[in-house]
């Protein structure tokens, strides 16, 4: 199963979180979402959002000036 990509490049927080939140609300538990961001704050905020809303961060990655968070949707 391929990851669902949320392209949040060029957006400042909290917009990447909002984009991820809106995407996740349409998905089922177990699906994977990959958020690609340019705001380094996303590496803190998306995992924080996942923790409080019951989703699991699979991995985070910093590549050049891009910050990637892959998460698994939890039970909503």
């Amino acid at each position, binding site marked *: 199963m391929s990851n669902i990509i949320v392209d949040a490049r060029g957006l400042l927080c909290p917009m990447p979180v909002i984009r991820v939140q809106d995407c996740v609300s349409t998905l089922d538990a177990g699906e994977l979402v990959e958020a690609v961001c340019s705001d380094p704050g996303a590496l803190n905020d998306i995992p924080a959002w996942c*923790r409080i809303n019951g989703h699991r961060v699979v991995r985070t990655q910093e590549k050049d000036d891009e910050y990637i968070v892959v998460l698994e949707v939890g039970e909503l």
Partner: protein
Amino acid sequence: MTIPKAKAVALISGGLDSLLAAHVAIEQGVHVEGINFFTGFCVEGHTHAIRKQDRSKPKRNNALWVAEQLGIKLHIIDIIEEYKAVVFNPRYGYGANLNPCLDCKIFMVRKAHEWCLKQGFDFIVTGEVIGQRPMSQRKDTMPVVSRQSGAEDRLLRPLCAKNLPPTLPEREGWVDREKLYDFSGRSRKPQMALAARFGFKDYAQPAGGCCFLTDAQYSSKLADLWRSRGEKRYELDDIMLLKVGRHFRPKPGFKVIVAREEGEGKFLQGYRKQFLSLSTTSHPGPLALIDGEVEPADIELAARLISRYSKGRNEEKVEVEVRQPDGSSHQLRVQPLAPSDIPEAWHL
């Protein structure tokens, strides 16, 4: 039989008052979830984090952080488009700057009330305290917020509830009025004491509030934007760009935004496909964007202006690349402006 918990949504700004108010409701056994509205004008650590010199500071989003401390869900709602009507035409007017605080509070409580109706929640919790800044928190405006938002007596302010008539959650016994508070006035001491009692040691206390519209310099730049357009109008990019760089307006319809350091330069780079951009090539220097319909003489002036902020400021000539939004570019060789050549009136 177990009686189901009452359900409340708490407006979470990320500051201390909303943290405490939500905690008071949670302590009383209410199921609380947080809601945070993003207007585009919110002051967030990340906005400052655009600047490289601030990157060592925590980049946390305070609303998310507060929700995590409270152990509650947080719903962040994008209200950028709808919020424009509040900023353009506030029924209760602006504060000291372009801050429509009372209309803003009414709008946010109304949105929270709509959310409650949709999600089957019973009431709304806010961290309002009578007498605290901003102006929406006066004794005479508290009922205005309740009434105009449509929330009526489903709006509970746990920190000052004892100074106000009992609300539905109190009358229904969802919360015990005796365990609510009677804070009033501008002192922060009662909140800090309560925070200590609850064991909250680390919390945000933004000195200038949580909204850029309360900032005089920001409001001045927004007013300039509206004047230059001949109407009150903005998009998200416009109001984000007002937070970044030095802004100069040498004449109507011609504005130059100059990055103050590398972090801002990187941020402005993201706009090079929308704006004419300039950068010095013979010497290290800032990136700049030009906003407006400009003539060659304006571009040369902008080139001289950014050269003033480059390492070549004391040189006879500095080379500047002028890049079109389509990616094509040409070079200019210009004399940097002297500080005395930059009229005070250009600074926004």
